């Protein structure tokens, strides 16, 4: 099972974190910091897999973003790379050639999409069509609920 997934930028800024095991916040921060530094110093042609504590780290860089997953000994590294890729494809499809900014400004959407793909650290639905359909259905529900607050809110928050 996947224990967590982190998305961070080339500058080391964490953009998204999803934890499938419960850790105290302090430990999460420590792990995040450690992995970001470890991965950022690695060169492009290096292997995408790392041994880290008793877990396996699988990471891949897409443009300015690093996707990093921690999986258990039993899990398949190559397919984890493809989970990441499928996630990127989904984001791309949804946002229309996704960039880091989309994820920053719509982080909640990024989470919702991830929840459809992976649940409890295991792959839930690998079909791109089905996931996109589910997200579209969510959006539809949202739109039906007229955004009453939309007009009152002009950045005064």
């Amino acid at each position, binding site marked *: 099972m996947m224990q967590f997934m982190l998305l961070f930028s080339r500058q080391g800024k*964490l953009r*998204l974190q999803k934890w499938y095991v*419960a850790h105290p916040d302090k430990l999460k921060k420590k792990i995040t910091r450690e992995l970001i530094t470890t991965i950022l110093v*690695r060169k492009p*042609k*290096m*292997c*995408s*897999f*790392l*041994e880290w504590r*008793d*877990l396996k780290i699988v990471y891949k860089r897409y443009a300015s973003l690093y996707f990093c997953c921690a999986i258990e*000994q*039993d899990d*398949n*590294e*190559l*397919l984890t*790379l*493809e989970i990441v*890729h*499928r996630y990127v494809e989904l984001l791309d499809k*949804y946002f229309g050639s996704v960039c880091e*900014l*989309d994820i920053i*400004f*719509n982080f*909640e959407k990024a*989470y919702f999409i991830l*929840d459809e793909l992976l*649940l*409890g*650290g*295991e*792959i*839930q*639905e*690998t*079909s*791109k*069509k*089905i996931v996109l359909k*589910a997200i579209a*259905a*969510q*959006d539809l*529900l*949202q*739109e039906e*609920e007229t*955004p*009453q*607050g*939309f007009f009152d*809110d*002009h*950045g*005064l*928050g």
Partner: protein
Amino acid sequence: MPAVRGDGMRGLAVFISDIRNCKSKEAEIKRINKELANIRSKFKGDKTLDGYQKKKYVCKLLFIFLLGHDIDFGHMEAVNLLSSNKYSEKQIGYLFISVLVNTNSELIKLIIQSIKNDLASRNPIHVNLALQCIANIGSREMAEAFGNDIPKLLVSGDTMDVVKQSAALCLLRLFRTSQEIIPGGEWTSRIIHLLNDQHMGVVTAATSLIDALVKKNPEEYKGCVSLAVSRLSRIVTASYTDLQDYTYYFVPAPWLSVKLLRLLQNYTPPAEDPGVRGRLNECLETILNKAQEPPKSKKVQHSNAKNAVLFEAISLIIHNDSEANLLVRACNQLGQFLSNRETNLRYLALESMCHLATSEFSHEAVKKHQEVVILSMKMEKDVSVRQRAVDLLYAMCDKSNAEEIVQEMLNYLETADYSIREEMVLKVAILAEKYATDYTWYVDVILNLIRIAGDYVSEEVWYRVIQIVINRDEVQGYAAKTVFEALQAPACHENMVKVGGYILGEFGNLIAGDQRSSPTVQFQLLHSKYHLCSPMTRALLLSTYVKFINLFPEIRTQVQEVFKQHSNLRSADAELQQRASEYLQLSIIASSDVLATVLEEMPAFPERESSILAVLKKKKPGRLPENEIKETKSPVVTNNHTNNEPQTISSTSSADLLGLSTPTQPSSSSNTGGGLLDVLGDVYGHKPSAPLTSTIQPNTSNFKKFVCKNNGVLFENDLIQIGVKSEFRQNLGRLGLFYGNKTNVPLQSFVPNLLWSEEQSSKLIIQMKPVEPVLEAGAQRQQTINAECIDDYTDTPSIGLSFLYNNMPQKITFKLPLTLNKFFEPTDMNAESFFARWKNLGSTNQQRSQKIFKASGAMDLQAAKPKIIGFGMQLLEDIDPNPDNFVCAGIIHMRSQQVGCLLRLEPNKTAQMYRLTVRSSKESVSVEICNLLADQF
């Protein structure tokens, strides 16, 4: 600002922009604090917020949290959002909770209520939201609250597919939190049959669940094997167009394939049904065949997905370890990957080949790739890949290639990365020892290790070379000569000085005939290093010097000079000062006979598993190093979970239990004159290794009777019988444990470990002689245990015995008959002095302990008598006016003191009760003796 999708929250977007525009960390914090204050006031304010506003603020808090700031409010508002009837508000509420709420939050009850409502919703999107939340948090309370509903959702005919998928994974999460939630019985078959579901997504999710269930209860879920094989067979024979959206870059259902292959690794090859077995082999062959086909796409996604399935298939082939043909094909396939362009594939191929090297079918096939692997170790750009190559070389090493592989590893070590040096040193040391046919080669290798990577040579490694040299006469002269030469180097590593010092001290005489290494030369050579060394090494050298006085009387004065110099304030280190003065006195006072006896050559060390192996195992608990060829698993029906999960202990503790722990600070024994001389003898085992895990069940019932007797069968099951004989004198005890193998196969990795806390060990010192790691079929082996009572203690030490029976890890824990009463010396006295002492000792409460308890069985006073005598005290008859009462007296011997102890046991037949009173000069003794004896009646 990029476009915001859905019903974007403008306020949130503005806030995020603001943060991004902050020029400095300070500015960002200022902006965040302003926002936090604003949100706080809104939440506290009199105006009720509408759902949209709540959602927006909760979302802002979430964003702030994700930036790395702590959030200590807003949870309640988030929980409120859960009960909103607007989906988007609900969704944000759930998101906040899954990211920010800990499983033990007080809010969990409220959350559970909201989830309940959503689970009951007719809208599957709402149901899924609730399921996702459970799967994200998965607390124990949730397991209790939803343990009934979710299995129903999973197997019910009218549940929609998307909900089924979430329910399967949700159940998996809850099962991981509390294993008892899975219903058995008819549910089992219904869950297994999800493997036949039409919807691939459902099957994929269900397979993850079933995999976890199988690990817990392989027998019950055995039916899944044939279904999994059929499903797999349908996938691998499908063309990529058949599975539509479940085909990923021309690979049919890679996720499901991998999951099914993984699931099958929980079982041994299905033997009872040759049809299933044949079908499975066909699948595996097909997968291997497909690997040879030209790629259908140049995209890396295609190759990754295809190879992910291939590697998983190879894992299964290795796991089954029964089809020679498949194993060799797998090996050839991996061999091709070793020179693939993709670093990832090379890495995985090296890793997977490590496992192949341990199968007798493919070990030879792996060896064919030795050259490429050596090249990988030297040439790979990425250290993690080089590390894998080292692992593989280690795994493929055997008698035939050991010299070459060890030499290559030594060569590489000169330039190896710091991060892998220590592990490499251990590996080289292990291989050199294991495959040495000629121990001069072994000595050369270890000295080379010290020369090349001295800093990474741990104590265990240099202790080990000394043990081996001491145990093997034929290599001693060579070792002395070689260390002598090595020490000639102007800058040699301190570890070299240690080994050299020790070996010359023992065997310097063997090379003293040669003028170039005469006693004086040896001594001067060693002493020239003295000032460059740490106190610990200096201490060792001083011991070497005193041994020199014995070996070479002609240099006595020279050595004594050095002792004189260091026996005073010039040696700031007290240990060194003391050693120097004691050795000096010894050399002055003792006659040459006495000297020869005191400084006699060290006795041989008991043969034992290399302690280095244990260190290596400890270093990599997740990935046990392997250099063992497994025996073939014959394809018999085993109802058992395979070799990967020891039944009673967690894998990490097993690594520890295997370890023969080394005291971290060996020089701590510095208060005894022998100091470092003892170090080598003490390396092992008197520190208890791992803490007892709760699952280990000490076999107490049988143990009870050993409080009152010294010999008998301590433990017995179908595999093994453990007997004990013991004798005690004063504060010393000696136990002989007899391990009898009742089976007709050898018990491997046979390791008894002492379980006795450090604190307790200071009160009762236990020394165990090690035993051979293999207990042959039908054989019996004795292990001697020495005990010394220092101070009074409670309870008694246990032995955690682990071994492999047919490759199945076994674990037995039993207590040693070493309770405090064993150190009793019976004392006779007359009535007068008994009562005088009794009265005396009873004056303060601290000294007595009393228990009144119900008889556990019939009150047979005749039977009680031998028990009391066996307890170790003197039974004083005709002293108590009541003939039914027992009174006893004894002295407990401890190193620190002797404690006199009186006891009176008063049976009350009518009430079927006993009253037991113990009086002694030490309260803790009274209490423990009282507890021990009370337990007997």
